[in-house]
């Protein structure tokens, strides 16, 4: 194989239509970072006409992209040179040696400019393996017109959400209108939902000592609330159990739900000119349970950009990475596309003052909850799977909430002690 690859590479280089000194392949989805990707590529090529950049548009469903990466990375494929990784994979990929360590490859100052707590997610053995591109979180979207019609305040607690949803659905008397929609299919988003609900009740994945405690009384109570919202109060449609983020967004956008709980990206389609709910919705921080008004309820996500250790153009890739995640590019993405910057200095730029939407996102991030991916590393996919499965068991009433969470706890203890 050793002699085949250079021959292949030469042949391909000769066959390539555009004659660039070097070619870089970048894998990233088209929805997450939106128009910024194209802008950054064009911006970089304007400065470096000798470097060709090919954008490999991967799926915006993270699970699908992950499978694609896993196949290429285990086979040690040299392409893509750079690829976007979900915050929850950063630690795992770094541990598996699937991300090139960036210390030494980039200037120390470049790395130091980033929010250190975000960098931690991609840090293994003290080395940073990917740079945070943007952060996002789960928010609580509501219909301003419906709240107004019934003289309701924006709900702050889950008890208020339940009461408001009840008032609205009963008042409207339309079987096509639901109270609450979100992404409760058996996907990562379900675990994010659960973290928001349980943290809002003073619970969470870990207890105060940092031990896994998914079956705590606070968690059982919050999970029971989710089950009751669906089965007892009938405020969520049955289809919530199959809904992915875009399914929930579509229902809300068509005016068929009062409340919606998903990530930042829905803001653009919801407020687009052709959206039936444009101008009729707003968002706030994910609610908490009574008595927990300072609880962190914004489950955080985000994407990193890293370099393939098998890339044949690491130096060039590092230069492009520095540009792509740089302050100027982040400022443009923030001001124009509401993407939350990961370099604190960007927030101080005067241009940021005009972006109210991003300021509101930012206020919610202040109540951020991170998933236990850094702490569990390569085990995280298993951890998330256990949680998704057992929460689903509870939501489908295959098990009582207590049974499901006890089972989850037992499986996690077994898994993490190995």
């Amino acid at each position: 194989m050793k002699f085949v690859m250079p021959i292949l590479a030469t042949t391909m280089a000769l066959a390539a239509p555009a004659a660039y000194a070097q070619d870089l392949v970048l894998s990233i989805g088209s929805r997450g970072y939106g128009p910024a990707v194209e802008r950054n590529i064009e911006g970089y090529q304007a400065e470096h006409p000798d470097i060709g950049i090919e954008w490999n548009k991967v799926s915006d469903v993270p699970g699908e992209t992950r499978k694609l990466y896993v196949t290429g990375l285990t086979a040690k494929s040299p392409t893509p040179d750079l690829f976007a990784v979900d915050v929850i994979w950063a630690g795992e990929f770094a541990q598996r040696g699937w991300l090139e360590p960036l210390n030494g490859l980039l200037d120390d100052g470049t790395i130091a400019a980033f929010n250190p707590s975000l960098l931690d997610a991609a840090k293994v053995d003290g080395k940073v393996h990917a740079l945070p591109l943007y952060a996002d979180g789960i928010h609580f979207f509501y219909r301003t017109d419906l709240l107004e019609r019934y003289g309701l305040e924006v709900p702050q607690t889950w008890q208020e959400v339940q009461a408001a949803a009840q008032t609205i659905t009963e008042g409207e008397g339309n079987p096509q209108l639901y109270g609450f929609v979100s992404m409760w299919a058996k996907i990562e988003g379900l675990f994010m939902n659960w973290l928001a609900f349980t943290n809002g009740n003073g619970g969470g994945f870990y207890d105060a000592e940092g031990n896994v405690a998914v079956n705590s009384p606070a968690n059982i109570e919050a999970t029971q609330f989710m089950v009751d919202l669906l089965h007892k109060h009938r405020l969520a449609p049955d289809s919530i159990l199959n809904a992915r983020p875009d399914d929930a967004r579509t229902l809300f956008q068509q005016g068929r739900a009062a409340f919606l709980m998903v990530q930042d990206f829905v803001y653009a389609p919801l407020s687009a000119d052709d959206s039936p709910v444009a101008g009729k919705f707003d968002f706030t921080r994910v609610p908490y349970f009574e008595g927990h008004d300072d609880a962190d309820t914004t489950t955080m996500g985000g994407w990193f950009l890293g370099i393939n250790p098998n890339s044949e153009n690491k130096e060039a890739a590092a230069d492009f990475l520095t540009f792509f995640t740089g302050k100027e590019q982040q400022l443009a993405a923030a001001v124009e596309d509401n993407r939350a910057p990961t370099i604190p200095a960007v927030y101080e730029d005067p241009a940021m003052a005009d972006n109210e939407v991003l300021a509101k996102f930012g206020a919610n991030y202040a109540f951020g909850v991170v998933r236990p991916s850094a702490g569990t590393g390569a085990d995280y996919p298993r951890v998330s799977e256990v949680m998704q499965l057992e929460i689903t068991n509870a939501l489908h009433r295959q098990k009582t909430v207590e049974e499901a969470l006890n089972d989850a706890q037992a499986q996690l203890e077994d898994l993490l002690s190995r």
Partner: protein
Amino acid sequence: MTRTLSPLDRRRHLTGMAFVTPTLLVITAILVYPILQSFVLSFGQSSLDGSEPYRFVGLQHYATLAASDRFWNALWVTLVFTGLSIPLELGIGIGLAVLMNEHFRFKGIARLAVLFPWALPTALNTLMWRWMYNTDYGLFNAAALQSGLVDRPINWLGDETLAMASMVVVAVWKTSSFMALIILAGLQSIPRELYEAGRMDGMTRWQEFREITLPLLKGPILVALIVRSMDALRTFELPFNLTDGGPVTATESLSLYAYKVIFDFIEFNYGAAIVVVQFLVIFAMSLLYILTLRNRD
């Protein structure tokens, strides 16, 4: 049976071998090698990129498998799916074949229409059905709600029993026509004289079917059964695209479970053990069919 080959025969023999060898080599490379590799992987612990050298662990992965509820569930789901869909496909397939064998107007168009579901890729079919099953926008719920049969949308793919039933319906819709095609070929090879003789003896249409058609169709039916059962036992695109194995794990087939273990959890060795078990199940079933076939002759 021993006989000496003439030089000419021997040369023909060699030419034949020469023609067959490349095919055999390719089959060995793309069929036999991966199967052996799966066995090897399943008895050890390693990483595919070579960062962790292969270490023999014996039956450890199989022990984990035997103790895993999820594995037994996947095996059960696979068997239930196969057991439900194959008889339905066979029944409908025979019916379709008998119909298509009759002379009527637009026979060509009818045959084409029957083959249509089979000609489309499973993944595409499945996505189309998923939309029809959709709880909020789907065709079935629109029909059910508007006709007043139900007052709340039915969550077709979100209920354990309904999800399995929905999956079987898609499989039957798609592959009955395949059964029909093979059986139709069999039907057309039955000599007309037999039916004429039957009619002379005063047989009814039903008697003709029972006494002439069915016995002579045994061969084609067995072939269709083998091919379809093997297909059903390794079903992947259907649950992957329709339900992703849900709700919970109610439609998670062995293939889908193995896929998740390998690509989500990146546990190639454990995944290989699942694949080996699946291989053995299909192998056993094929043997059963083949033995039945042989006994018949």
